[in-house]
Structure formats: C-alpha cells, structure tokens
C-alpha cells in the first residue's frame, strides 16, 4: 500500500521529469555543481543581489497597481494613495526604496570582489562583461524609477540627465526631445519612464542575470585564491577542492540572507529615508517646473559619477569622463593581463592601487555630496584623474618592469595629468590657484606609486609561488 503510494508520486514526478529537465537541472546546477570550498564574506553579495532583484519586482508590482503615471496625479498617488490610503502601502514602498539602495550597495561590493580576486580574467571575461551590462541596466532602472514619484528632485534630476543628450553636437537636441517625447520633462516622459521602469528594464535585467548565471555555471566560480578548481580533479572527474553548491552554499547563503534582512528591515522600519541618502528630502515636495532647486543631486549610488561629470567644465567632455569610467570597467580584462588572479598573490603596490580604486571612488562620492562650488569641482577633477589612473596603470603591473620602464611610466603618467591641467587652464575652466591647491592629489599618488616601485622593486613583485590547491582560512570559512 505504502510503496504503491510512493511509486505513484514518483510516477507523477517522472511524467513531468521526462518532459522537463527538472531533476537533471537540479543535479547539474545545484547538487552536483562544484563550487570552490573557500568562498569568504565577499561571496555573499551576488546571491543577495539576486534576492533583492526579486524583492524589487515583488514590491514594485504592488506599487505599480496603485501608481498613476500622470503629472497631476503621480505625486499624491504615491504620497497619499500608496503611503497613506492603501493598507501596508508604506511598508511596500519603504521596502522598494531601501531595496534600491541595497541593490546598488550589493552590486558595488560584488563588483569589487570580482576586481580583487581577478574574476574577470580568462575564461570569465564574458561573465564580467555581462555583469557590467547588468550594472548599466540597473543604473538605467534606478534613474527611470526615480522620476516616478514626481517630487522636486525626481523632476529636476531627470531634467538634468535627459539634458545630457543635448551635449551631442547638432543632433543632440532633437534626440533629447525624441527621448523625452516633449521639450521638457512632462507627461510623455513620465509615461514612457513608467513603462520602461516596470516592463522593459526588469525584463532586460532578468534576462541579463540569467545569461550571467549561465555563463557562471559554464566556466565555474573563481575563488579568493584564484585557483582553477577544475584543473585538479579526482578519478571521477570531481574537483578536489569543490563542494556541491547545494546544500553547502545554500545553507551558507541562507545565513547571509538572514543577516542581510536584519539590516534591511532596520532601515525599512526605523530609517526609510536613510538620513536623506536613500530618499532625498526634497522629494517630499511635488515637482515644480517653475522652481529649480539650488542644488540638484543624484542619490548616493550615482554621486561618484556626478563628481566626475561636475569635475570637467564642459558638458560633452564631462559626460565622456563619467561614461568612460564604465568603459574602463568593461575593459578590465584587457587592461589587467597578469596571469595571477587573486589580489592575495599580487604585489604590494598592486594592492595599494586596487585599494586606491575603491578609495578614490568613495572620495568622489563625498565630493559630489557637497555643493557645486568651484572648490569641489576642482577636487572632483583631480580625484577623477586618480580613479582613472588606478585603471590605466593596471597594464604596468602585468609583468615586472625594468627601472627605465618605471621611469618612463612615471613621466608619461605625470605628463598626462599636467597636460589635462594645462588644457583646463587654457579654456579658463579653473584658476591656477585652485588647480595647484589640488594638483598634489594625482601627482602625489603617481609619485608615491612609481617612487616606491623604483626604490623598492620587491614591492612590485607578485608572489613567486602560487598555490595549487585552495588555502584554508579567512572569516566565515
């Protein structure tokens, strides 16, 4: 009796399994998908980002049900309809707001993890590139969604960004009008932004994430040691340093999810505005087309790019400066061709450079958080130079350089920095006094980096002996 029941359940499952690759996918992608066994704290963020994507789609669905994409109704449909009139609307909306910022935080950490452990190197170049496209789609999604509440900052932020296109010579203005569907941000803009935000971009994001996952499972995960686990397999073809993703990383990620939700819900319940960082306080005022705010800011996750834009006193070049930073990220596999993957086995100065990358990015954010004074713009320009340098100097670390090569690298890099300054001066962008006051930032960084490289060649030497197997240790191991 009992066995016949079991076999019936098995028969039903078998019917489906014969027609859909359920159990084979389950096996190949989870229970027999080998993951390196030394993932550390940094490896939580990718799966958490996927969780937040699902959360954003779920909460967004409920918000879209109550939202009115019309300038006359939008603001109050959010601030009254969703926030006050509908039951639990405030909770859903605050989760969506906090989720947006969480998404960016997780993605930034996820990207930095990839940079640290060389996860963009062969054979994962395409995986990295798809990831960059996910980031771009996410940025577009956030920008489009920010207009929807139709608050002051929503409106003027969108006005500024849609104006970027007008920087393109000749055809810029017609294209901007075509994109907005109007000469200024208005009803047609709001309608299309709503459609793009709730339909186009989420579909694109989900598709890109799927491609990202397929690419990942095709080439296998990198790890903090940068060891290719598939190169050391046992007699049945299983990597000696691999463990099945399920149950080992599923239980580990569940722990990560729980801790993440503690922080997430603290913000949702007690600090949904996040000190004015997660939601600009000016957005509690309805959009007013006749009243431009004194200071137009993006939210925190775009601030570094905003500093790059502001640092260059020309619209087109400013946009190229911040757009170029995405190009640099995408070109990372081309720039860094050193065979050593993990930062653990790279030279000291390479580590300094990678830390400087994160540091200058944060610094740029801090600068853009201030007012658009000339002082802040000049700082922005010079820290942008440092941020660019941290990428463009990566080829220097590809192999050990002779003392002469180091000097040439130093002279050329300094010359580029100073030529940019001369150029800025020649177009009367900034006065010399301010330029000289902040020029020490890129100059000193380059001098320090190459000075140490010349004086102490050992600091540019990568680890001579790379591990063949994964090393134990690290927190949350």
């Amino acid at each position, binding site marked *: 009796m009992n066995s016949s029941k079991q076999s019936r359940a098995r028969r039903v499952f078998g019917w489906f399994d014969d027609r859909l690759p359920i159990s084979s996918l389950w096996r190949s992608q989870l229970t027999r998908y080998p993951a390196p066994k030394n993932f550390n704290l940094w490896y939580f963020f990718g799966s958490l980002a996927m969780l937040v994507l699902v959360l954003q789609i779920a909460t967004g669905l409920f918000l879209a049900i109550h939202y009115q994409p019309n300038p006359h109704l939008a603001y109050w449909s959010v601030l*009254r309809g969703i926030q006050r009139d509908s039951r639990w609307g405030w909770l859903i909306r605050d989760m969506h707001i906090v989720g947006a910022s969480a998404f960016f935080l997780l993605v930034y950490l996820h990207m930095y993890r990839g940079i640290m452990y060389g996860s963009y190197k062969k054979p994962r170049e395409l995986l990295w590139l798809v990831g960059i496209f996910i980031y771009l789609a996410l940025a577009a999604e956030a920008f489009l969604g920010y207009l929807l509440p139709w608050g002051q900052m929503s409106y003027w932020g969108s006005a500024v960004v849609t104006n970027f296109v007008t920087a393109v010579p000749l055809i810029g203005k017609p294209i901007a009008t075509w994109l907005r569907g109007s000469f200024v941000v208005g009803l047609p803009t709001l309608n299309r932004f709503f459609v793009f935000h709730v339909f186009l971009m989420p579909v694109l994001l989900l598709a890109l994430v799927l491609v990202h996952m397929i690419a990942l499972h095709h080439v296998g995960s990198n790890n903090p040691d940068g060891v290719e686990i598939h190169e050391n397999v046992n007699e049945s073809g299983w990597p000696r340093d691999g463990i099945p993703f399920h149950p080992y990383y599923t*239980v580990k990620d569940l*722990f990560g999810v729980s801790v993440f*939700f503690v922080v997430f*819900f603290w913000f949702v*319940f*007690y600090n949904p505005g996040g000190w004015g960082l997660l939601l600009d306080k000016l957005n509690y005022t309805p959009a007013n087309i006749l009243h431009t705010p004194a200071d137009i800011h993006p939210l925190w996750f775009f601030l570094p790019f905003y500093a790059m834009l502001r640092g260059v006193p020309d619209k087109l070049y400013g946009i190229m400066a911040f757009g170029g930073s995405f190009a640099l990220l995408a070109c990372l596999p081309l720039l860094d061709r050193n065979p050593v993957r993990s930062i*653990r086995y790279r030279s000291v100065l390479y580590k300094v450079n990678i*830390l400087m990358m994160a540091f200058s990015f944060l*610094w740029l954010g801090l600068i853009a958080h201030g007012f658009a004074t000339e002082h802040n713009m000049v700082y922005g320009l010079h820290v942008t130079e440092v941020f660019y340098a941290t990428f463009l100097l990566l080829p220097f670390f590809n192999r050990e350089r002779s003392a002469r090569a180091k000097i040439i690298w130093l002279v050329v890099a300094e010359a580029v920095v100073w030529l940019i300054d001369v150029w800025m001066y020649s177009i009367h962008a900034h006065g010399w006094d301010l330029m000289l006051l902040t020029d020490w930032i890129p100059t000193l960084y380059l001098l320090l980096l190459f000075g140490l490289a010349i004086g102490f060649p050992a600091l540019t030497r990568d680890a001579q002996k790379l591990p063949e197997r994964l090393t134990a240790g690290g927190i949350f191991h």
Partner: protein
Amino acid sequence: MTKQNAPRGNHPVLLALLVGLLAGFGGLARASVATTKPPLRPITVNLQDKAALQNGALYTLHMCVACHSLQGVRYSSLPRMLGMKRDEFEKVIGTNGKHYHDTITSTMPPAIINAFVKILPPDLTDIARRRSPAWLYTYLTSFYVDPSRPSGVNNTVRYNVAMPDVFAPMQGLQKPVMVEGLRFGSPAKVAIGVKPLTQGSMTQAQFDRTARDIVYFLYAVAHPHQQERARLGPWIIGLFVVLSVLTFLIYKLYWRRVITSEERWWRVGK
C-alpha cells in the same frame, strides 16, 4: 594540503590607513557654500501627548490651512491620531465645512493666496519629513521685523521668507539679533536670533507651547505609521536575528565536514 606562505588578502594596516585618509580629506573636499546658521531651538516630539496634538491640530486646521494644504491627509484619519472620537473631533476641531473623508485643502482660493504672496504656499503633509522638528520649531518662533521685505518680516532660518508673520497677533513682533557672518560665502549681517519687540495676546511661554504643539501635529501627520513601525519592527527584525542564529548553526553543522575532510567524502557520479 600544505599551508601556503603566500601573502594574504587581509591588510588591516593598509585598510586603516585608507579609511583615515578618507576621513581626513573628506573634510577638506566638502568645503560647502559657507553660511552662518542660527542655532536651532531643541524640541523633542512626543506623539503620546494627545492634548498637545489636539491643540496643534486646532491651530493648524484653523490658521495654517487658510493658505496651506495638507493634500495627503484626510480629516477622517485625524481622530484616531489625536485620540478623539469622530463626533468629538467634528465638534471641537471640525472639518472646515468639508466632507469628513475629504483631504485637507486650503480654505482660501489659490487665486487670492497668489495675490498676497505670489507663490503657492508649500503643502504641509510631509513638511516634517523634509525639515527636522527643531527647524520647524525655530522657524515658527523666529519671525522678525525687516522693513526691506514686502511683508515687513523676515525669518532667521528661512532667509527672505515669503510667508507673512501670521503669529504677530499672538506672539507680538520681534527684532533680530544680528551678527557679522557669511551668506553663501560672502560677508553679510546675519540674524542668528530674535528678541521681543511688542507684546502679543500670549506670553512668550504660551506661544512657544503653541508652536511646539503645531510641530507635534505636523510631525504626526508626516509620520502616520510611527506606531505600526514601532510595534511591527522589533518582531520582524527579531525574527531575522533568530533566523540568523539558527541558519548560522545549520551552516556550521553542514560545514564541519568540509573543513575537516581531506578526502573525497561526497558521492559523485554514482
């Protein structure tokens, strides 16, 4: 597996150095447009003080709503917040002749407001989210006589304010305490406080309490779910704290084998 003596990923000294640098230069880079700011008058909002909330509602709905709207708030949402019954609310505070479930809109037609002040007064629904309670409290109590302004008054925290001093009959007029300071980076005389000039219908303490009550009320309407947040928050966060502990134990339980095992202990390809 042999332990590798290779450099590790953790560099606390380097990290600490960079964090220090960030903190140090952060201040340098954040040179903003310097403006001398008057000190804000401290206030602690107490949403349990129903008498204060009711008084604040009375003044807001009978004075402020002459020009300002609270389009996000319905009259019907107020009694519960104020700790009143519906008929009590309608008798004592009232709905300005509107339907009970209507949103609160200004009682003066916008055209007339426009004739007075030329700009539409801001909606007060979320004003306490945009501004801190201390800022609102200081704003309400810091109008001062300034003959250079069309309305004859100015405000210490909101320079060149368009709003007339509607509190003058209650509070009396005030004169500014001026200091030499900065406004948007250039030297200027800046009002950092006020002193009484004439006597109004209220004493200073009475007026301060009225202003405080208005701030309480505005804070309450801008944070309508404060109670639910406080009630639900600890449970949800507590749930995930407990789950964190449980999942951590499960994770350790599963992973004990991984860390100690050197051999092939899982079944593969069978």
